[in-house]
């Protein structure tokens, strides 16, 4: 056992010195390899973290939303609809909600304006508003300061800033503005007794589909939106965005694959000669293959480790600065938030499988071909 360990130590020692002897080639390969792993891992880590963030933020959202439809368009809904819903078994809470959009022509951004209460938000009194972090940043708002908005009637309205919405939910609340029902109705000229939609909280999540079916039967002029559908939509958006970025990166990936294959599969004359010498002086074919395999594995593992670590820091420490504009945000306001660092074993394994594995395999065949060379070829000078 001790001899075996010492033999492996010699092999590793020789592998390292062999790598050092071909510094330019190996450092170039390592650099490119690291960049590719970094790009792929960044996209994967970022979209995965965004998906988690969205799911976590939506955890408190209502299970079912009912919206009235007129000619295929979302219309206002009256609280009578709550009555029409009747006593649905399995529904814990039913409430009507008020929300809409406000376009800020100066910032050229849409804000979501909502009356708190439905999603468990803390209320705001008349004349006061609670604003999302990104709006506050953009407009340079201060707590207890004022915000000036143009009402739909055209007159300017001033509101006191009651509070800022918490940073933790910024992915979803960056552009949110909360105001009282009275302010909301007068600001938008919203008809009295009408609401935007109705939110339902369900006792057993397994029953959501049954309840949705019943609502659709009872209210044929309404559409039913499930929270899981919203989550699925977010998921698709992030998947789609991830796909777009990966498609853009595919050129780089293919270029690298060709480069790596060429470097890995074509042994230089010098390397072939070296293998011949090692065999002639008593190295077994297995020793040579192991040594060369470790060489490839060392490069790909180091690149994987460096690339993944850099991607991790890029995403969770530097907020994915490279991909932020493409992968994050859905209006002209880009939320700023700290992603919670997470590692997904499956994604890590996938990335490992698609980066380290092909390279290691690509190196094996040419090495094996060179390693089975007759040792006497060195003596005959045919190498």
């Amino acid at each position, binding site marked *: 056992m001790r001899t075996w360990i010492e*033999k492996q130590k010699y092999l590793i*020692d020789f592998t390292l010195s062999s790598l050092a*002897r071909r510094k330019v080639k190996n450092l170039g390969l390592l650099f490119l390899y690291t960049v590719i792993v970094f790009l792929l891992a960044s996209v994967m880590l970022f979209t995965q973290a965004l998906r988690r963030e969205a799911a976590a933020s939506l955890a408190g959202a209502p299970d079912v939303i009912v919206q009235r439809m007129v000619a295929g368009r979302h219309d206002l809904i009256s609280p009578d609809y709550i009555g029409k819903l009747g006593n649905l078994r399995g529904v814990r809470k039913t409430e009507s909600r008020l929300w809409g959009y406000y376009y800020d022509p100066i910032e050229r951004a849409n804000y979501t304006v909502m009356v708190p209460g439905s999603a468990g938000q803390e209320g705001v009194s008349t004349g006061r508003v609670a604003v999302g972090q990104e709006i506050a940043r953009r407009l340079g708002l201060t707590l207890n300061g004022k915000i000036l908005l143009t009402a739909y009637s055209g007159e300017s309205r001033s509101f006191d800033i009651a509070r800022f919405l918490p940073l933790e939910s910024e992915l979803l609340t960056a552009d949110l503005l909360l105001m009282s029902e009275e302010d909301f109705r007068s600001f938008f000229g919203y008809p009295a007794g009408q609401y935007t939609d109705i939110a339902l909280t369900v006792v057993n999540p397994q029953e959501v589909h049954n309840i949705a079916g019943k609502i659709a039967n009872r209210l044929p002029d309404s559409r039913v939106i499930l929270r899981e559908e919203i989550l699925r939509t977010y998921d698709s958006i992030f998947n789609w965005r991830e796909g777009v970025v990966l498609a853009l990166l595919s050129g780089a990936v293919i270029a690298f694959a060709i480069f790596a294959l060429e470097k890995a599969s074509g042994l230089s004359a010098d390397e072939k000669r070296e293998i011949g*010498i090692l065999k002639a*002086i008593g*190295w077994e074919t297995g020793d040579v293959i192991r040594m060369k395999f470790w060489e490839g594995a060392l490069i790909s593992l180091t690149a994987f480790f460096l690339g993944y670590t850099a991607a991790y820091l890029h995403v969770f420490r530097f907020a994915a600065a490279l991909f932020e504009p493409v992968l994050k945000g859905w209006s002209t306001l880009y939320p700023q938030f700290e992603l919670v660092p997470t590692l997904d074993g499956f994604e890590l394994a996938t990335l490992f499988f698609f980066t380290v594995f092909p390279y290691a395999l690509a190196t094996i065949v040419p090495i094996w071909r060179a390693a089975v060379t*007759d040792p006497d070829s*060195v*003596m005959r000078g045919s190498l």
Partner: protein
Amino acid sequence: MIELAGVRKAFNQGRPNEFWALNGIDLNLAPQQATVFFGPSGSGKTTLLTIVGCLARPTAGRVRLNGQDISGLPERFLTGLRRRTFGFIFQQFNLVRGLSATENVMLPAYPLGGDWRELKERAETLLDSLKLSHRRTARVEWLSGGEQQRVAIARALVNDPEVLIADEPTANLDTALSNEFLGILETLAGEGRSLLLTSHDPLVVESSVVRRVVALRDGRIVGDR
């Protein structure tokens, strides 16, 4: 110690360019003796050396090492045998560029494992005995031809083999360096090692260290003295 019976060796067998490098060699090589295979280029002396040194297997015939038939052994066993029994000095020295003299000397011992410090000491002692201790950390490509050959000799000796094999050892050396090499051979023969050389250099063939000269032509033995 080494017996060859009816040894033949073909290259590209079965193809139009088939070539028989050895054509029926019968030979007995006694231990602790310096033997030179002498002959013109293409006479088969290097091929004979590769078969004796377990670098290649004969196409036909038998090779016995200390009574054991080794002609049909699989590569793995041949490698082990080669590592324990033979040390090689190649015509082009075949040192690994980028490695120091000491590292080159240590290379044949890597597959055996063993203590690194001990191995390094052994390599340095060998380099010292060949008057190369001052160049032990130098990369081999920075060494002169004579120095490179001495590194190759030290490398051949690192596993303490019974037989030292040298292919055209003086082909790349001037007269002074050739004499220096023969002096080293004298010392090694004095230590009781068997020496097998190929050469067409009269300096080697007529050297006092050489006890036997086997002349080859067209893959056959044409003289033995």
